[in-house]
């Protein structure tokens, strides 16, 4: 008797379990689902927190105003600790179970790794990664970098070097300092080619680990080659280490940092070592006088006034603003393809002034070719000038 009872109960439990497995999350009507991938615990978590905050706030903002075409936006958020395998698992979930129509991506390693899947599944992927490898619609038609791509940035750097160089007796010498991961390496090959093309001597390349505590030996090696300028391609957390060590060693090299390496926090983190350091600014800093800033600041103050904030927060808003616009243009029954086309229809789209206007075309997924060159002066970031680089199709996808 108890045997059968045993068996029955066991089979019942297993049966329930299986049925439970098979229940997909309810696909509610009248809701637009967007996948959201963020790093909150890994090596880029300091930016991830602000980015996540920005995205969530922006979605709430739009939902408060009726959503898109009457439908509410639902963010399906996954934290992945900057570990690509978790990103891949999250992506699978987004597409197959949650049936998202667009993904707000994050890091370069995972975005680049997902390229074939994104293309096969036809899911528009708006990424925090601005890698040049994502800009060619012929190879990656569904990838849309959310800002000026790293390759354009390194070209801006090299152009700047060339313009500012006055010594006619020799060519300017530059070095690249970059992080040992897909993000750090993304523009380097293109940088090498472009330097050669415009007649700049690339004398040294230094690789720094993703997590950096001491760059002295790398800088000492670089010092031997005596570059006039150096481009740093890593995150805001690590750049101060390079700057401080450089300061300590008394290096005369002038630094230019990419967009993810410099922001309002840099002068505070690197103090004196940051003086005179330049960088590329892709997105408005907190409090800047642009049309959208008041909306953002008010929203932020209303919902979490005491919290910290920095430029990544703006980026979170930016990408949602762009996505919402694309959904609006895609009409009532958006599909991956129609959203892609909608994104490609964006021409000089005003992102509330947070960035230069965005233009995606079906041949060129670089949203903009304009940025600002900034410099740290007197402990603050000061804007020097607007810079741009031609939308040379030669550099698409590199």
């Amino acid at each position, binding site marked *: 008797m108890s045997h059968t009872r045993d068996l029955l109960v066991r089979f019942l439990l297993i049966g329930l379990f299986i049925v439970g497995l098979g229940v997909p999350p309810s696909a509610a009507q009248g809701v637009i689902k967007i996948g959201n991938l963020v790093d909150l615990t890994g090596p880029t*978590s300091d930016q991830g*927190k602000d980015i996540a905050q920005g995205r969530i706030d922006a979605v709430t903002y739009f939902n408060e105003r009726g959503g898109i075409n009457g439908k509410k936006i639902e963010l399906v958020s996954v934290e992945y600790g900057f570990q690509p395998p978790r990103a891949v698992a999250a992506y699978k979930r987004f597409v197959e179970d949650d049936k998202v129509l667009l993904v707000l991506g994050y890091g370069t390693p995972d975005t680049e790794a997902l390229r074939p899947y994104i293309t096969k599944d036809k899911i528009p992927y708006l990424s925090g990664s601005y890698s040049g490898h994502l800009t060619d619609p012929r190879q990656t038609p569904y990838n849309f970098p959310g800002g000026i791509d790293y390759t354009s940035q390194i070209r801006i750097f090299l152009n700047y070097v060339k313009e500012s160089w006055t010594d006619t007796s020799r060519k300017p010498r530059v070095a690249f300092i970059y992080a040992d991961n897909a993000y750090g390496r993304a523009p380097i090959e293109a940088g090498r080619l472009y330097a050669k093309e415009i007649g700049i001597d690339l004398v040294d390349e230094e690789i*720094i680990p993703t997590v950096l*505590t*001491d760059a002295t*030996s790398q800088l000492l090696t670089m010092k031997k080659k005596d570059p006039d300028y150096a481009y740093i391609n890593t995150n805001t*957390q690590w750049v101060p280490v390079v700057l401080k060590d450089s300061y300590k060693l008394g290096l005369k090299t002038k630094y230019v940092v990419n967009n993810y390496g410099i922001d309002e926090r840099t002068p505070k*983190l690197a103090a004196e070592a940051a003086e005179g350091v330049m960088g590329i600014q892709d997105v408005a800093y907190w409090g800047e006088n642009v049309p959208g800033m008041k909306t953002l600041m008010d929203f932020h103050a209303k919902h979490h006034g005491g919290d910290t904030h920095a430029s990544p927060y703006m980026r979170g808003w930016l990408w949602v603003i762009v996505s919402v616009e694309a959904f609006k243009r895609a009409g009532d029954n958006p599909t991956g393809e129609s959203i892609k086309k909608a994104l490609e229809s964006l021409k000089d789209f005003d992102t509330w002034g947070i960035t230069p206007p965005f233009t995606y075309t079906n041949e060129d997924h670089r949203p903009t070719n304009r940025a600002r060159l900034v410099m740290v002066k007197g402990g603050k970031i000061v804007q020097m000038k607007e810079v741009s680089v031609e939308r040379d199709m030669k550099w698409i996808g590199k």
Partner: protein
Amino acid sequence: MADQLVFMLQLVITGVAVGGVYSLMALGFVLIFKASSVVNFGPGELVLFGAYVSWATILPMKLPLYVALPLTFAVAILLGLVIERGVLRPLIGEPIISVIMVTFGVASVIRGFLNMTWGSDTRPFPVLFSPEPIHLGPVPVSPVHLWSFVGTLVLLAIFSVFFKFSLTGMAMRATADNQQVAQSLGVSVKRVFALSWCIATVVSTLGGIILGSVRGGVDFSLADLGLKVFPVVILGGLDSVAGAIIGGVLIGVLENLSGGYLDPVLGGGVKEVAPFVVLVIILMIRPYGFFGKVEIERV
């Protein structure tokens, strides 16, 4: 030729300076091991804790230094007590693998707690040391490194004296050697453990303050440095204070030398892995390190 020499000298001296920080972290590890034979596999998280708490008391709470620093150390002592009492004591006598895993667990909890309380932003660390380098001959050294090295030497002196001559120190060594005999002689083993963890957390906090100053900011990656402790303590001996100091310096120098000479050849990353290669070599030749106590197996 002189250029080459200066280059090497710079690497060596930087290595010594950086090594001073490793020594501090290793000291925390050694102290726990010396007194209680417990291996702490989460030294990085203790340092992280110290860095965050010191940051929190100085910046957001805006306490003056002479209040903030003692407060930080007091909190560190509290942490040591909590760990020892709450977690390690129930595990006395359990197999070593359990103890190792528990320290991982504690490290995880500390990490999660810090993330929850203060979030994962990089926080700029208060400037406690001048950034202007001090020149030792042709080599510039940042004051923070210099001070940390001096600090480690001072601690070395203090602890050597402590363990050799003071009653408590001897009690700690006795406990590490043989708990039961020590107990039978009247040593309060519980107190010894608590004391050793507290000293370790305090020293780790010091390490955290130094690291925070070196980096300019506190964030979670500080904890990853923790694993560097192992090559240091293997080199120096798991239970030797002097070994921790010397090992730290040696590893720092080794790192920088391999960084300066091997990285350009092998393409980066050698600097990080070199200490571990050394660790394996040492383990094969002289497992107890240069100054460690040789364990005699009793069957």
